[in-house]
Structures are given as C-alpha cells and as structure tokens.
C-alpha cells in the first residue's frame, strides 16, 4: 500500500500557498505510507541556460558551501547552492551531465535526486509529517507538485527507494501498486544505455516513460505504450514542468480521487486527504477510470 497526492494550482495567486495546501494532503496519507515520503515541486523555472539539481546527502552531513567551492573550481561556470540540512538545490550554468558525473566521482555521498529547470525534489525515510517539517514543505511555492507516502512491499526502505522517482529533465513519477515485470523492462532498457540506480519496480516504469519521451512520444503516447509494456497494478501520478497526469491500470485496484475547482486540481489516493481543501464542497469529484489518461497543464 502507498499514498499518492498531486496538486496543481490554476491561479498564479495561489502559487505561494502550494506547499501549505499540500501538507495536510500528504500527512493524510500516513496510514497508507508510514515508512517514507517524498515530493517533487515545480517552481518558477531557472533562466534559460541554467538548470538545477536537487541533491541529498542522507545521514552524512555535507558542507554544502565547501562542495560549491569545489564545483566552482572544477567546472568553470556559474554555480549557486541553496541548502536545507541534508538537501540542497544546486543551480548551474554548466551542462547538467557534466555536473552529475563530477558529483559521482568527487562527492560519492551526494545523491542527485532530480535535474531540470523547474523541478525540486525531496525524499527521505520516516513519517510523512516529520519529513514535511524537516524540509519545510508548507513553505514551498510553485505551480504543481507530485507527492507520495510509501509502505514498502517490493524493495528496501531507503531514501533512494522512496518516491518520487525521476529520470531525464523535469520528469517524475510516483506509484501506488506493484509491477510484475520490472526486470523485463529493465532488461529491455539497459542495452539502450539507460542506467538504473535501484532495484525498485517503480524506477523501471519511470525510466520507461522517460525513454519514450526522449524518443518523441508525448506523455499521453508514452503512457498508452506503457499499457502493453508494464504489467502489474498501478496508479501512476506523473509530473513534467508543464503537466500533471494520472492513470490507473485496467483493474483499478489502487484507489484515486480527483477534486477539481476553478482554482485547483487535487488528486489523492483517498478523499480524506482532500477534505480540508478550500471549497471542496463545490469541487467536481471523480475517480479516474481504468486505463483512461487524465492530465492537466499549468
């Protein structure tokens, strides 16, 4: 079991409330996912020519300003870092791949959680309320977000196994369910040069969709293709810098409820995570139908 939450605000004036509206949604899913939680938030994009990396240092404290100094020394471009404890966002004018491979070699204790122009990513083990406090989720601003509370069934409880999973640029995915053929998907993708970081089934789905996006599919086409390639139970919630998308498998074993008003689209595994939202009494409420793709653009 796991919990998923998604929120997209339609009015620019609500962007500064994105985190505050979401925290009760995430903590409302604690019973469905008490062991880990995570969140991808899409913020105002960095200027063209820049990209940002969400970094995570786990239990081992990192001197982020010292790391920034080393990055600046190694790669002659503009770099900035904004740190919150063991999470930091590195904004850089260098090529993202160059920074990622430098970090892999020279800062092996630092995990790169996401790369893009809009996405910031947080994930950790522990109770969702603790994680929300740890990373000040209630203060987050942005256009939309994708969140998850995890009850591990397929693989270990570690920050790396927590959701959201990311691949490529500004793409993330969370999953309630379990896939039965992740190893087959992986066997298909690895010869194409696609590298995996964990043995988690959701990572296979995430990398499959991102591969299809790079091959020219739009997200809806990628998901359509996924119906024949990904076997198992799923409610997938995905984000790109422009879009929030939800889809459930043909058996719709894993729940989801959508509430839509003129101001927002809110998605959760269960209504109890939506009950606190403003004007929820006037919201249009529905459950996504099996194998139907629902998406909203910012």
């Amino acid at each position, binding site marked *: 079991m796991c919990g998923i939450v998604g929120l997209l605000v339609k009015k620019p004036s609500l962007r500064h409330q994105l985190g505050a509206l979401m925290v009760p949604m995430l903590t409302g899913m604690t019973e469905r996912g008490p062991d880990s939680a995570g969140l991808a938030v899409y913020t105002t994009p960095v200027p063209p020519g820049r990209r940002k990396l969400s970094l995570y240092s786990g239990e081992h404290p990192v001197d982020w300003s010292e790391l920034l100094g080393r990055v600046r020394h190694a790669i002659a471009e503009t770099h900035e870092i904004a740190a919150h404890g063991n999470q930091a966002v590195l904004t850089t004018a260098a090529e993202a791949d160059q920074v990622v491979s430098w970090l892999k070699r020279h800062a092996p204790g630092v995990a790169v959680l996401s790369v893009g122009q809009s996405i910031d990513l947080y994930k950790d083990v522990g109770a969702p309320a603790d994680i929300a406090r740890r990373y000040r989720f209630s203060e987050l601003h942005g256009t939309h977000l994708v969140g998850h509370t995890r009850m591990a069934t397929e693989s270990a409880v570690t920050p790396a196994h927590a959701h959201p999973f990311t691949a490529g640029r500004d793409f993330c995915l969370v999953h309630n369910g379990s896939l039965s053929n992740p190893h087959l998907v992986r066997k298909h993708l690895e010869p194409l040069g696609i590298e995996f970081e964990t043995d988690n089934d959701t990572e296979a789905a995430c990398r499959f969709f991102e591969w299809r996006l790079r091959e020219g599919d739009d997200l809806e086409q990628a998901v359509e293709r996924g119906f024949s390639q990904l076997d198992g139970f799923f409610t997938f919630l995905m984000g790109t810098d422009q879009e929030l998308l939800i889809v459930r498998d*043909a*058996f*719709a*074993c894993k*729940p989801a409820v959508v509430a839509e008003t003129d101001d927002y689209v809110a998605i959760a595994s*269960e*209504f*109890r*995570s*939506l*009950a*606190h939202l403003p004007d929820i009494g006037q919201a249009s*409420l*529905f*459950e996504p*139908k*099996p194998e139907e793709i629902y998406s909203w653009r910012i």
Partner: protein
Amino acid sequence: MANLKPVPSAREFDLSRDSLRQLNLYLHKHAVGEGISQIRVQHPDGAHSIACGLDADLDVQIHGHVGYYVAGMNQLATVTIHGNAGPGAAENMMSGRVHVKGFASTSAGASAHGGLLVIDGDASLRCGISLKGADIVVGGSVGSFSAFMAQAGRMVICGDAEDALGDSLYEAVIYVRGRVRSLGADARFEPMTDTDRAAVKGLLSLAGRSEDPGTFKRVASAKSLYHWHADANQEY
C-alpha cells in the same frame, strides 16, 4: 399529570470533533439502550469503517463523503450516505439498507448476503462481486467485473456496464438497462419474463426510482461452467 420532558430520539456526532471509535462504540453498545434510533454524522471527511458492524434497527444519516467499508457487515440498520463512498461500501451486508447518494468506489456490496444497497450515482469496478443474496440497485453505471461470481441476489443497473459483466455467475440475476461493453464468461442475456419485470419494478420502487422495467435486459448464468467437468477440457 406532570408534563414529561420530550425524550430525545436523535443524536449527532461530528467527526471533526468526535472520534470514529466513539461513534461506532455508541452505535454498537449504547444507542439502543438509550432509546436513540436516529444518528446523524457530520464531517465524515473520508474516514474508514463508519457505521460498520451495526446490528440494530438504527437510522444513520451521514452527511459528506466516506472512505473504505462504510456500513460493512450491516444488519437491520438503515445507513444513508449523503455523499460518495470509498471502496467496499456495505461489503458483507446481512440485512437492512444502505443508500449512497453519490458514487461508490470499487467492490460496493461485495459478498453481501442480504438487505438492499442503493447507489444513486455510478459504481466502480467489481460492484456486487461474490454477491450472496443481497439486492443492489445502481442508478448510474457500473465498472468492469461487476457481479463477478455472484452466487445469489439481484442487481439492477440503470446505466451501462463495462467489461465482463457477470463473469462466472451462479444463481444471481442482473438486470441492466444500458449498454453492456462485454459479458463475462458463462453470462448470457435471457428473455425478460413478467416475473422479472415485477422484480425490477419492486426493486426500483424500493430505491425510489421510476425507470420503466420494460427497458431492462436480464443477464444470468448459462451454467456451462456451473459444474467443473474434469474430462471436458473445459476452458475459462
């Protein structure tokens, strides 16, 4: 004779203030002894297992949306949800009446043995799965695999049905008014008889509905899978 104070017959719980445990304990242990027959529940806010396991003739009115297993295992009570219901509404109901005024999520009325489940809106997948004798009336449409392996009871669907309606049916009978995307294995359309039309009329009337019973089709078991024939190379 001294004026008697009116004895209250109703009680209200507000789940934004009262705990779910307080409510269910009251319904199970105290309502009947206190002479309370009507219970109103405010702010259910998607909580699970509201009014589960009731076994007395109580009238429970829930104002808002509920989560999993509302009125599960119900006996005798009337439970009305003025909102939507999560998965497993009225699952394993034995008797009484459960009425969902909005839509119901998956597995509504699963394994219900008796009583009446009314859903004014749509029901999701697996509505009435393994039905064992209850009646279900759905005002809207039902999702795939509804009435899967239903053994006894009746199901009236005023809207459409998705795939595999009535797969592996036993003695339960389905009446459907709209389009059926596909029937499940061993389910078949059968002619409506006067008895069927009377049954549909009675169920619609109990559900407060007015569709014309003549517009429904009957789906029942072809009974080719009813018994397993080991030597018939039987396929599902």
